């Protein structure tokens, strides 16, 4: 039965919600009128995740009754628990207790987001019992919804789930999504929908469009259709910067730049399997190489270059070369380091670079950074606008992705992946591990460095803080969340890590917690990332099934005695 686990997960869910809310769970406030709806959805998702986790731990499917009891229990415990806590805090605040000396976020407004009261009402101690009851019941029904959805997910066997995913309806739906979001984005931006202040919602749609393109491209396997839709998507992407306002284009170009960095790290980590935690250093090197050689205030430009800095295009070349060299120089000492040790040493490299940027004041400007980095120009035309930089970033992303695809499907890519799977065996295949690693470092670093150049002109002023440990971890997470070893995954990860924070700008604290929760949920539900490389996409169960399927064909075509082949593997 699902009563005991239901109670357990109810308490856990309550704990999570309580924790999120004392950190200032800001959903209702940020989203204004949609607050309660969003909270309800969030609730439903929480119940859904709990139920799926329950199912995974229980190793079985739940019946309708079980799913619904479980879901109701979870959401009721969490909902009434929260109502109780909110009521309690409301009481305390009304009694003049300074609750926010302990829980900084628990202000009268905080209570108000749950009860619908104003600050004054909360402080005056107006009773909110009915409002809280309504809140608890509303969240319980949201939990019911979650339970029904989870029932839909868990009831159908994997096969039916696959059938549904693979149905023509889903196929065309997935293909239609990019067009829907694109048109919606366009309509919103042109004011056709009548709304004002569409910056954030437009950005949401733009991000959804990018995500939908990635998902659709993965779904369409047929070569001719791929070409047709591929061209359609490219045209749409080319026109994308024309739709958005400056804010949206600024965020989108950040997404593209971080995708380039992510693709570089993906070579080192996703293909070659080396956990490089100081990878941000190469991004910094590119940005500083251009900044220091181009900014009119830079020590180098003033003292050695007669005040004339290099152009953006020269900067790209310099950064690619310096980046590759740095990749090799940082790579040589760690050739023999593996796994955890590699991670620790490279973490050190990242910190060293950061500290050098911070402390070599005379050359790098120290904490004051490098200022007034010139924009790219082409035939005298200034390309410094958010829109132009988005174009440059998209071109850079396309070029880097193209090179990566070709490298991956070549003897070099194969040697990286072989090395990732088993270094010793790769060596007995004639692969020189040292060169293979250094080539991966050099290419990965060069990609990050050219992205750094674009980042520097985008930012105009750069500071060591732009390249601190936090950014290194962000880039690492975007590669892992997206799906190690896949370019679409990296871009999706970049949308999540560069786009979402802008969307949830007012919710900085919450974002980190949410990503923490997302990471944990992903490890349970989708350890291979959101859009992993295709060959990993099917989980073990399916490949087992596939194996059995072909063994049957095999048995049919070979003589019947051979069926013992199944015996060797048929142990389920």
């Amino acid at each position, binding site marked *: 039965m699902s009563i005991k686990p239901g109670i357990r997960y109810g308490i856990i869910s309550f704990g999570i919600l309580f924790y999120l809310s004392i950190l200032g769970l800001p959903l209702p406030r940020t989203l204004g009128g949609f607050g309660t709806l969003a909270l309800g959805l969030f609730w439903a998702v929480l119940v859904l995740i709990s139920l799926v986790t329950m199912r995974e731990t229980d190793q079985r499917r739940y019946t309708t009754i079980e799913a619904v009891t479980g879901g109701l229990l979870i959401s009721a415990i969490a909902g009434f628990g929260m109502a109780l806590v909110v009521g309690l805090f409301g009481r305390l605040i009304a009694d003049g207790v300074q609750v926010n000396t302990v829980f900084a976020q628990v202000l009268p407004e905080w209570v108000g987001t749950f009860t619908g009261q104003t600050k004054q009402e909360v402080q005056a101690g107006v009773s909110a019992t009915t409002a809280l009851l309504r809140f608890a019941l509303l969240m319980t029904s949201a939990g019911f919804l979650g339970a029904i959805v989870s029932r839909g997910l868990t009831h159908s066997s994997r096969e039916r789930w696959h059938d549904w995913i693979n149905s023509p309806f889903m196929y065309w739906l997935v293909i239609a999504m990019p067009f829907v979001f694109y048109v919606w984005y366009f309509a919103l931006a042109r004011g056709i929908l009548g709304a004002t202040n569409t910056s954030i919602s437009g950005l949401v749609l733009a991000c959804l469009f990018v995500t939908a393109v990635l998902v659709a491209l993965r779904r369409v396997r047929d070569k001719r259709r791929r070409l047709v839709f591929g061209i359609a998507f490219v045209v749409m992407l080319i026109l994308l910067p024309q739709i958005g306002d400056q804010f949206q284009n600024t965020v989108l170009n950040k997404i593209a730049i971080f995708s380039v960095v992510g693709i570089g790290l993906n070579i080192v980590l996703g293909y070659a399997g080396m956990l490089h935690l100081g990878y941000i250093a190469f991004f910094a090197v590119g940005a500083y190489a251009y900044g220091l050689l181009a900014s009119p205030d830079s020590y180098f430009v003033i003292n050695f270059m007669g005040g004339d800095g290099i152009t953006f295009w020269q900067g790209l070349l310099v950064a690619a070369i310096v980046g590759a060299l740095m990749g090799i120089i940082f790579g040589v000492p760690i050739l023999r380091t593996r796994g955890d040790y590699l991670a620790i040493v490279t973490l050190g490299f990242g910190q060293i670079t950061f500290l050098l940027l911070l402390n070599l004041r005379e050359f790098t400007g120290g904490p004051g950074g490098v200022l007034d980095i010139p924009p790219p120009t082409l035939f005298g035309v200034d390309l410094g606008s958010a829109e132009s930089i988005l174009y440059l970033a998209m071109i850079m992303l396309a070029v880097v992705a193209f*090179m990566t695809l070709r490298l991956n499907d070549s003897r070099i890519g194969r040697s990286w992946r072989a090395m990732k799977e088993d270094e010793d065996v790769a060596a007995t295949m004639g692969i020189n591990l040292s060169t293979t690693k250094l080539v991966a470092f050099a290419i990965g670093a060069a990609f990050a460095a050219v992205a750094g150049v674009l980042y520097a002109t985008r930012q105009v002023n750069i500071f060591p803080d732009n390249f601190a440990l936090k950014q290194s971890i962000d880039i690492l997470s975007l590669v892992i969340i997206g799906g190690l070893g896949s370019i679409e995954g990296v871009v999706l990860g970049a949308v999540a890590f560069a786009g979402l924070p802008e969307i949830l700008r007012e919710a900085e604290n919450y974002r980190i917690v949410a990503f923490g929760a997302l990471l944990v949920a992903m490890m349970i539900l989708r350890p291979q990332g959101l859009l992993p490389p295709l060959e990993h996409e099917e989980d073990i169960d399916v490949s087992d099934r596939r194996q059995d399927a072909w063994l049957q064909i095999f048995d049919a075509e070979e003589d019947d005695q051979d069926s013992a082949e199944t015996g060797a593997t048929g142990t389920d």
Partner: protein
Amino acid sequence: MPLFECIELSKAFGGLQAVDNLTFHVDQHEIVSIIGPNGAGKTTVFNLISGFYRPDYGQITLDGDDITGLPSHLITQKGIARTFQNVRLFFNMSIMENVLVGQHSRTKGGVFSVILRTPGYKREQEKARATALKQLSFFGTRLAGYRQNQPANVLSYANRRRLEIARAMATEPKLLLLDEPAAGMNPKETLEMADNIRRLRDERGFTILAIEHDMKVVGGISDRVIAMDYGKKIAEGSYKEVTDDPKVIEAYLGTQGGSFTSK
């Protein structure tokens, strides 16, 4: 001069003398088997030959070249390839890619020619693909064909062993080291594997050094058998001579691996 030779090879792990003063050779076109009870040091010999460990003492030569202590990839380039007792494929790569990795040291394409897909690189890759396909086809339709673009982890156990051999063949070695190629196979597959090993020599011209526990296989394939115990060579000669040797019988009876006669 023999194609391959180990002279006074020795290797200790801490106090354990895993390989002890071992001298043997393999002639061109010969199939030599190494037998011995569990823990006799057979796999360690392979690990020494393929450069996983550096011998404490002794010399290894291929074609008269001293290859002692070279790194693994150079040993492969010189012409020695191996398989593993516990199958070690690149499970997330496709069957074709596994074999193509074997072609790595026989191709040269660098970063720029790969990105630009130069005509030279394309030609080289076509050749590599053809070679890979030829090796896969050695096992009939079991690895080649519609299956070759599936990840190696979909393969059955026996096919994994076959793929490992195909991958080793793709490095174009002079000497092929097979570590228990028939382990875990059923009787029919075992016979087939014995046949395959003979074909590797007769049709493909490889010289083979194999570790094998299954005495039917050993008897069926070997030109010469070397028996080891406690890291030492205790007997050498034809299958008959070695299996009749009292020292060998005692070595097997003295251990739990006494499956020697029953198999």
